[in-house]
């Protein structure tokens, strides 16, 4: 089985689906001849041509707006927003249009658009190349939000997104785009949306993470193990709809839970997870559920390493729940 990094896995998924389904087209800034600033679409222009790998003018509202029209007409567009931080000019098209088309038309117009965008910090990108805006989109009825953490999941989840008809925001962890390598089947396979993965089993505390934070969660679990603490790491993979059953089963088993995300804390996705868990498993909890998150500040440049959650902070927070 070949090994790939996340970029290669994304590209492999796009190529696989473009070969299989002539309706799939890729569009965005620099995605054509150049192959994207992160090279996710590299080689696709040569294989599929300018009609299916479309260099767009530089305007996110236009990229998403035209992608919506393409989807309504019968294509399966996969727009790339070059950085998640640049998605906001298209916010109205995503929130008020894309996510609402099926509903507001009485089911007459599904709108199958899969938006790919790199998210997260750790690349010395400052405020405009580092944000994690998932909570804004998880709060949007009609959208699905998917956030893979590794190459195998990236390919299987992206193929799954391309084979269903709801609009998806597919968030890719850019810090580990190349650093995360793993075996990825050359074959066609899909991973069911809405299903989390238990990355590591444990008994003392459940640690919920997604996207770039899963690798931090695994590092935390290893450090914890050395200290005699058994941590169960769950990679949520799909954030909306999230896998409540897997989460609750784990929390009932461990009795403790910590949520780890990079995005700002207030009204972050962690808040929703904690609310949902305590509604269903209050009597199983031995301690309050705690969070390790980014801060409610804009994403900093020089002090990025202080902003980013890390294994030590996460382990410290797990200890706090154990000592509660």
């Amino acid at each position, binding site marked *: 089985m070949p090994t790939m990094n996340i970029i290669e896995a994304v590209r492999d998924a796009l190529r696989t689906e473009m070969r299989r389904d002539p309706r799939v*087209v890729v569009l965005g800034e620099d995605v054509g001849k150049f192959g994207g600033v992160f090279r996710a679409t590299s080689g696709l222009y040569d294989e599929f041509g300018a*009609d*299916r790998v479309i260099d*767009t*003018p530089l*305007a996110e*509202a*236009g990229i*998403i*707006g*035209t*992608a*919506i*029209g*393409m*989807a*309504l*007409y*019968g*294509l399966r*567009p996969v727009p790339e927003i070059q950085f998640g931080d640049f998605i906001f*000019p298209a916010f*109205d*098209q995503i929130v*008020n*249009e894309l996510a*609402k*088309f*099926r*509903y*507001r*038309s*009485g*089911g*007459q*117009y*599904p709108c199958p658009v899969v938006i790919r965008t790199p998210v997260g910090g750790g690349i010395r990108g400052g405020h405009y190349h580092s944000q994690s805006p998932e909570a804004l989109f998880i709060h949007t*009825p*009609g959208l*699905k939000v998917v956030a893979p953490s590794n190459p195998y999941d990236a390919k299987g989840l992206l193929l799954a997104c391309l084979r*269903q*008809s*709801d609009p998806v925001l597919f968030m890719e962890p850019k810090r580990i785009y190349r650093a995360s390598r793993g075996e990825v089947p050359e074959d066609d396979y899909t991973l069911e949306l*809405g299903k989390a993965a238990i990355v590591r089993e444990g008994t003392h505390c459940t640690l919920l993470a997604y996207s770039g934070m899963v690798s931090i969660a695994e590092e935390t679990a290893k450090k914890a193990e050395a200290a005699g603490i058994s941590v169960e790491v769950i990679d949520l993979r799909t954030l*909306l*709809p999230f896998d*409540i059953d897997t989460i609750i089963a784990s929390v009932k088993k461990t009795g403790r839970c910590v949520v780890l995300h990079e995005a700002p804390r207030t009204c972050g996705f962690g808040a929703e997870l904690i609310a949902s868990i305590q509604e269903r498993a209050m009597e199983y909890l031995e301690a309050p559920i705690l969070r390790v998150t980014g801060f409610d500040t804009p994403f900093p440049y020089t002090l990025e390493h202080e902003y980013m959650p890390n294994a030590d902070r996460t382990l410290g927070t797990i200890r706090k729940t154990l000592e509660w």
Partner: protein
Amino acid sequence: MVAVQMQDDLRRVLDDEGRVLPGVKVPELSEETLGRMFDTLLLVRTMDDRMMRLQRQGRLGFYMKSIGEEATHFAVVPLRLTDWVFPSYREQGAWFWRGYSVENFINQMFGNEKDPVKGRQMPVHHTARELNLVSISSPVGTQIPQAVGAAHAAKIMGKDDVAMTFFGEGTSSTGEFHVAMNFAGVYKAPVVLVCRNNGWAISVPTERQTAAKTYAAKAVGYGMPGIRVDGNDILAMIQVATEAVDRARAGDGPTMIEALTYRVQGHSSSDDPSVYRDPHAPEPWEKRDPLNRFRTYLKHIGLWSEQLEGSIVERHNQSITEFLGKSDKLGAPPIESMFEEVYEHMPWHLAEQRDWLLQQARTKSPHAH
């Protein structure tokens, strides 16, 4: 508001009274087509009148009339049914022309159990997929890049379909307008962009929307032709729209049409123009009423009689009365439908919320309609 005068660049077929201007080519339309156009114009005006009266009686929540602007809707006449229309919220005539039924129109007004959009949008936000009339949304301009995308998709898929989109002059101030014009120009997309310049964006007059001499002039910056047309002249509307649609279908790219007209009444049932506009301002435009002008034209070519018009209006009134009566007997969409079609398959969290709501005591709507 400067009264619009008939500059050289303004395309017209009929004069203000409805006589064919000397030396002008009249679009070739069959008697049947002319008859359907008149019938549809009368349906729009009859429907607008009836719906606004219902709104004033408190029986309908909201309405938007298009009196005086109806001729602009007929830009869709040269389209095939396989072509796509991305409307704003004031093109009733385009809907009826393409076959949208009085029954669906009325059921949408009331958001009842037979509403094609299942009570999920306020009045005048129609959808008719079978007619390629795309779902309307309230934020202005969002439909313009979508129309460009659909047009470009047709090109990619090797079909010769054309997309047409409608918007007002106020919408030309939005980012979406400029973005879409630019994409359309770059892609050479088969799209026709109809800007209905009715002089007013709710209370804000056209001179607060642009410092450009005309809206059509904006097209130049995007590498496409911009055509100005008398929007109260139904024959001129069809003429310029035909040229634009033919151009798009031939692969020659997009056209922007500025249709000059006037909003002689309020923006919507919630508006009161007396607060911000000279009550005499609409008068010059009332004299250029598109229905009167078309009627005069039909009379001149022997296709109009008072009896004919009376029978058409009577038929429309009867049909509206019939479906209003039927609508009165229809209930609201089922509660469960609120949770359906958010996604293709209902996810667990929506199912859970639905089940919870169904267990609660029922709430009575505080609204009479």
